[in-house]
């Protein structure tokens, strides 16, 4: 089982804090890896400008791959602004083929609309990923987006943090998501490690998605660029969130209605029942199954948490104005925000979507039984 931790704070903090929280939750997980995503990033050695620059995260497994990457990025017109050098202790890393951990800042492309840029960034990420796959997997790319840094590695999470000196405060962030396991159910593949990322949207999940194959086949059939990979059954949660919010342009609340729709008798009395029944039919292939807690973050630093329709997984959210945490275990929340009032901790039930808005003033707890505002008349 995976342990998940997310912290969102007005003041940037070290990702190492989240790794320590994972340590608090260590009992129930195998600690076979780490997936880390940071937003609201600040580098100690470089002044990052969110509106003007984008960040590439990944691993060059060989020197040759790194050279190829340099060439490819140049040929695609990206001007490098900063190359973050981790202080690495290679002896603490299990894997041997880690030539360089890449966190690089590039100038955002010009003469393109915002939508074109977003597509170009994704296509570049997919292009680099394919290139790595064609070269025996010597290049792994996790994200290429503005203000997002991702690290994925095999091993005990805290040990990876030590190996990359994540406690040195050279990278801090306002939102950090961490997940502590490689997908050990199947062969280990860095791409199979949560959180997953597509066009600024990221989720990580605790549990198994038993409806994976039909959902994956449906998403692949959509032929939407980026709906590929699926080394893990949880990757579809990210793509569904992307599909609902970016493709269907529905509000975040609709995500819950798509993945875990309400029952007939509940929709019969719902103010938007007619619309939601239709949505449930149209999106019925996206109904998830199995025990799941899905934690996600959006480009505007919104964080959210939803449960499966039977609430078969635990997850707690807690905190105080300015700093909030979501974790799969209560002790994780305690470790992340020790000075909160635990009486206000909240464990969402099957109908809830918990949202930590970008202003982090208060937690929004929205239930599926309540109406939400739709952009169009519905």
């Amino acid at each position, binding site marked *: 089982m995976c342990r998940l931790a997310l912290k969102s704070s007005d003041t940037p903090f070290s990702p190492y804090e989240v790794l320590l929280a994972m340590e608090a939750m260590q009992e129930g997980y195998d600690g076979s890896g780490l997936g880390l995503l940071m937003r609201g990033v600040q580098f100690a050695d470089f002044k990052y400008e969110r509106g003007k620059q984008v960040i590439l995260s990944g691993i060059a497994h060989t020197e040759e791959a790194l050279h190829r990457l340099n060439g490819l990025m140049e040929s695609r017109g990206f001007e490098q602004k900063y190359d973050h050098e981790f202080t690495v202790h290679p002896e603490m890393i299990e894997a041997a083929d880690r030539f360089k951990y890449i966190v690089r800042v590039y100038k955002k492309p010009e003469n393109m609309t915002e939508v074109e840029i977003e597509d170009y960034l994704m296509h570049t990420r997919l292009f680099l990923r394919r290139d790595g796959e064609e070269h025996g997997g010597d290049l792994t790319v996790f994200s290429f987006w503005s203000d997002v840094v991702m690290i994925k590695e095999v091993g005990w999470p805290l040990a990876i943090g030590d190996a990359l000196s994540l406690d040195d405060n050279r990278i801090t962030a306002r939102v950090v998501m961490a997940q502590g396991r490689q997908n050990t159910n199947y062969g280990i593949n860095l791409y199979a490690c949560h959180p997953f990322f597509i066009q600024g949207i990221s989720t990580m999940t605790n*549990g198994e998605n*038993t409806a994976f194959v039909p959902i994956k*086949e449906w998403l*692949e059939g959509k*032929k939407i660029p980026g709906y590929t990979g699926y080394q893990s059954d949880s990757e579809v949660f990210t793509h569904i969130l992307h599909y609902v919010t970016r493709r269907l342009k529905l509000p975040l609340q609709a995500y819950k209605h798509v993945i875990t729709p309400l029952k007939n008798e509940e929709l019969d009395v719902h103010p938007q029942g007619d*619309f939601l029944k239709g949505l449930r*039919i149209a999106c019925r*292939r996206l109904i998830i199954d*199995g025990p799941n807690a899905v934690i996600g973050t959006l480009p505007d630093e919104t964080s959210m948490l939803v449960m499966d329709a039977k609430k078969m997984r635990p997850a707690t959210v807690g905190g105080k104005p300015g700093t909030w945490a979501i974790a799969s275990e209560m002790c994780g929340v305690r470790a992340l925000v020790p000075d909160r009032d635990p009486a206000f901790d909240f464990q969402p039930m099957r109908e809830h979507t918990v949202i930590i808005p970008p202003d982090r003033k208060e937690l929004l707890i929205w239930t599926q039984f309540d109406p939400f505002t739709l952009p169009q008349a519905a």
Partner: protein
Amino acid sequence: MDSVRSVYTTPSSLTYSDLPWIIQHREDRCTLCGRCTSVCPVNAIYLTYRRQRVPKLDVLKKKRGNEYRHFVGIRQHTSIAKKCIGCGMCSSVCPNEAIGPVPNTNEHRTVFHQNQKGEAWKRGGRRNKTGATILDRIAFDRISMLTDPALDAGRHEFNLNTILGRVLPPEEYLRRKAAGEWIPPTREIFPFIIGSMSFGALSPNMWLGLLQGVAYCNEVLGIPVVMATGEGGCPPWVLKSPFLKYIILQIASGYFGWDEIIRAIPEMQCDPAAIEIKYGQGAKPGDGGLLMWFKVSKLIARLRGVPEGVDLPSPPVHQTLYSIEESVMKMIQTLSMAYSFRVPVYPKISGSTSAKSVLNNLVRNPYAGGMLIDGIDGGTGAAYNVSMDATGHPIASNLRECYLDLVAQGRQNEIPLFAAGGIGKNGNVTQNGMALIMLGASGVHMGKYIMQACAGCLGNEKGRCNVCNVGICPKGITSQNPKLFRRLDPDDVAQRVAETFMAIRTEMKKIMAPLGRSQSLPIGMSDALGIDDSDVAERLKIKYIC
């Protein structure tokens, strides 16, 4: 003593041991009540007096002579027309267990003579192929165990229903909803459907029992079962009743019964569940429906608008159509229009290598509400033996191919595929149906299984009974003769329908729970399937397990 030369024999002369079923009669038990002879649907047996000569020699008196013993016994006819069909009714009515049919384990001769007077063999029933089907051999092997807590089939809540009707892609749904445009009608139904069996093929009591059972499932048990009429319409009292919503009305190439239906539209209290346009069926692909004259009673003649006692063969194709494009356009659209676009309309075709081209036409038709493929193991009220046994395509690979075709186009959510033909053939109805669902079907239609489970049909794949075509059904299921159908109490049928669907519902949960599925029907969950045959596994794109 007769001389050998005078023994009369013809090419079709058979003896009882040449027949598929041999009657064993125990004279020591027989009370001569005569029940067996009167119940036998084909007059295969008769009561007869016999004389046995016992030669007698009295040596002391030097006298020679004979004594004669007389006895009464049951004998079996050996003509093709009166051959025993193995139904076993005689045994079931015998008070002393004195009589019963025994299958002939040797080859039997009748197959060579089932063409008397140049008439090719017609019968009812099913494809006479025995043994486990491909569906029977599929195992659900992806068990959520330690990776995650398993579900509890007894206590957790399961969503078992499926959607019948055209489903829009989400983008298009949102656009139309915002613009207030037409959204195609859909129905949420139980994925096990009572397949089309016509009012005409079935007796009035059978039909009534099924409908009562279906209504009970819907209104009391909360299982939204629907049933399809075959060709031949629907009794007017049903058309005008609130039960019409549980009925899929079929229109086929003979258009029998549609006068009544169209006339009843203004008085209908509700819409039917759907309209099924039959282009073909699994038991006799390329052949129209057939109701033989024996069964065209006064009531049936009235419903169908034909004279009494004539054969009613439907043409193999819809006469108004000459191309698939046209059929898709014209018929689906016209029938949608008849109900103001409020009722899903879908075609039923026979399993065939051409199924994919039909499907691709449907995908482009905005009014098509699904597609039903009926495989070679489908049953029928009447057909030529050769059609039933040798014509058609098995359902598993046909369905799978069509589903994967939709997957490749990203349209698998839009046109629900339904599968039929041999579901529950060997009794494993839920397992067969769920295997097809995981191969990509949105639901399954079953006919023979319902007749067997809910009405006690005696037919099987070893040629037992299967005389549904000639109106002599010994159980009263497929006869229009009141003397026969009054044997079937509609209330009993209704009760069996309810029991059957309750059990299917439980078994569905027992299959879904270990797979970790409860929120939606696992349509296309092929990762849960395995079979012990690598060729089949490859063809169906599922796992090979052994």
